[in-house]
């Protein structure tokens, strides 16, 4: 009796409950409000189906979450003394996973007979648990269905209850997003505080040197490490600025052409093609940056007598700018298209040229949407990793010159976390601190942009 069968049976029961509830619905009598039933039959069906399904779903999830723990502790309880005696919890969990893999039929060498026995017992317990779940769910579903069905009568307000439950489900869904955000922020804060216990805050925020090495062995020379984040953030700033310098004009002009000048057929064909740009995996852009753009720029630089490093912020920023152009063009295009035609007519009737209408009427009116696109593009630029790793390098130079190799926050987080390292040294914890500062920065950008939009937006309704 596996979980799939249980799920299917439960779904069947829910459908049955719906039909039962529907049939039970009082006859609608529309002659007078007082005697009319409070809802259409569907609501009675939904009411009974919800009663049938919701408690079972909650029980199901709780069971799946708790059953393994319960079974494990039961098994550990039956293990002979000499296996469990004097073992720490981490060693015990090793024993547990041994039992799990034995139960799954993966034996390495000659297993301890006590463990084999435990594995057999584990399989048996699991089967019992599934069977029990099936029986419990089945009976619970039948009970709640009968219960719900029994109190449907003439003036039962099924619609009110169903709507209340639906609201509850909607609230639960929105809570998940909020709780996740809070959870991420809290874990960032917690891990960062551990980092700041090892490295002072001012050194991290204002230090000009980023060399995140730590001694691998005790007393190693010349590997003390420096955790000054300024070069990393400056690198992010340089690459993002290059990207925005490319993408904002490009995207905005494309959007203006698409929404105001292009024929409908051209727009229909061109818009999806432009949006495909955003769908290309960033690693492909990375190839493009490192194999085509970067050498080309070095070559052009050599011709012009400017030294462009093979890994440079400008190559990464250029390709990134192309990548994020669709965000700006697509959202700006939507915003411009959403401006009512009455404003275009109004401007035209005053003898405004199309360019004047766009500059002075349409762009201000579409500003919030355009800002939204730019913001999305900025956050993509700041968060972009792959292109920068490939085209701009990982050397933390403190420079504002886009022709030099730089590195960005996200790239550093990747390099800090790659490889074998435990989560108790400053090197890995620095990733959390970087993440936290990045988070605060993007939050700040969002808030500022929101304020700007609110101040300068021209509402057209």
């Amino acid at each position, binding site marked *: 009796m596996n979980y799939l069968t249980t799920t299917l049976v439960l779904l069947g029961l829910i459908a049955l409950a719906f039909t039962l509830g529907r049939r039970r619905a009082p006859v609608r009598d529309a002659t007078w409000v007082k005697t009319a039933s409070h809802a259409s039959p569907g609501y009675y069906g939904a009411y009974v189906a919800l009663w049938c399904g919701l408690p079972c779903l909650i029980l199901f999830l709780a069971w799946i979450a708790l059953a393994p723990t319960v079974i494990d502790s039961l098994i550990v309880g039956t293990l002979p003394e000499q296996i469990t005696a004097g073992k720490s919890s981490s060693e015990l969990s090793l024993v547990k996973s041994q039992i799990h893999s034995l139960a799954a039929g993966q034996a390495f060498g000659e297993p301890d007979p006590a463990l084999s026995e435990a594995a057999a017992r584990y399989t048996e317990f699991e089967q019992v648990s599934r069977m029990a779940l099936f029986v419990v769910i089945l009976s619970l579903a039948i009970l709640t269905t009968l219960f719900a069905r029994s109190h449907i009568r003439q003036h039962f307000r099924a619609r009110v209850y169903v709507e209340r439950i639906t609201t509850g489900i909607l609230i639960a869904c929105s809570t998940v997003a909020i709780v996740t955000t809070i959870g991420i922020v809290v874990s960032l804060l917690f891990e960062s505080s551990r980092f700041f216990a090892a490295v002072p805050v001012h050194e991290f925020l204002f230090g000009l040197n980023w060399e995140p090495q730590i001694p691998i062995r005790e007393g190693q020379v010349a590997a003390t490490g420096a955790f000054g984040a300024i070069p990393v953030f400056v690198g992010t700033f340089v690459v993002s600025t290059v990207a925005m310098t490319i993408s904002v004009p490009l995207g905005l002009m494309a959007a203006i052409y698409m929404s105001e000048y292009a024929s409908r057929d051209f727009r229909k064909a061109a818009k999806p093609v432009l949006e495909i740009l955003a769908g290309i995996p960033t690693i492909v852009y990375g190839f493009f940056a490192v194999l085509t753009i970067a050498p080309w720029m070095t070559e052009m630089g050599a011709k012009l007598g400017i030294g462009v490093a093979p890994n440079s912020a400008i190559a990464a920023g250029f390709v990134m700018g192309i990548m994020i152009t669709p965000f700006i063009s697509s959202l700006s295009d939507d915003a411009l298209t959403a401006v009512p035609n009455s*404003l275009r007519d109004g401007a035209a009737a005053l003898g405004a040229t199309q360019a004047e209408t766009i500059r002075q009427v349409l762009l201000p009116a579409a500003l919030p949407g355009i800002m939204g696109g730019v913001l999305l593009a900025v956050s993509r630029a700041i968060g972009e990793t792959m292109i920068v790793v490939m085209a701009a390098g990982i050397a933390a130079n403190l420079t504002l010159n886009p022709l030099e190799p730089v590195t960005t926050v996200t790239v550093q987080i990747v390099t800090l976390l790659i490889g074998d390292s435990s989560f108790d040294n400053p090197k890995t914890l620095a990733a959390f601190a970087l993440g936290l500062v990045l988070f605060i920065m993007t939050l700040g950008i969002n808030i500022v942009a929101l304020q700007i939009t609110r101040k300068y937006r021209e509402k057209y309704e």
Partner: protein
Amino acid sequence: MTFLEGQAERQGIAIGASGDTRVRSASPAAHPATVATSEETPIKMTARKLSVFYGEKQALFDVSLDIPDRQIMAFIGPSGCGKSTFLRSLNRMNDTIAGCTMTGEVMVDGINIYDRVVDVVELRRRIGMVFQKPNPFPKSIYDNVAYGPRIHGLASSKEELDEIVQTCLARTGLLDEVSTRLHEPGTSLSGGQQQRLCIARAIAVSPDIILMDEPCSALDPIATARVEELMQELQKNYTIVIVTHNMQQAARVSQRTAFFHLGTLVEWGMTEQIFTSPVDDRTQGYITGRYG
């Protein structure tokens, strides 16, 4: 000789020395306030055999009509009869609609506005339009009125621009109501005020002709009365063409009325005559409320 000629002198002197003797040149101030119930009224615009198509569909059939100078002409008729289409073809607003084509000609002061030499942008400055739904720009009240003068460079200094804005707002009776909040958004006004703002915006570029497409249909009776009053006032200096669904309004404000039905111009003439002794049965039926 183009339609655009004489932009500089437009405040005083009309442009139409093009051989059309019916066009009269006179400064607005010198012109009598109410004119003419007679046929000697000078003609400002003339449509000849105008047909308009939306794609394959013909919306207007061979309309020929004279619009008198500095009077109000009303277009009436049931919904979808082509009166708005006709109105929009008078300042080439139909150009902005994809798939809209036309044949025939529209003469203003003796010049065909569909002629290739006519600049449509300049044309629309001289023939302003007020729309059914008030459409103030999402800018301040001041900037709404100043928009046209700014793009056409009608004011050489800030003071001059202020003067234009004040004058236009005053003419629409809006100045007293908004003088303290000129820099609040135009969209914050009430519907009637918004419509008067749009009229102020239209007259700020000093057009010759103002086309009004059901300007009062979104307004309450009091706001409607104010706009009608304003039209009477404006008529002294501007030629006004109004499309309306409201027959009482047409009877109240206009000197001439044209009745459209199913894309054809059924009958046109003095308002009094149209409403009291229409020639055509369809006009009779419409104004007595048998259909519409």
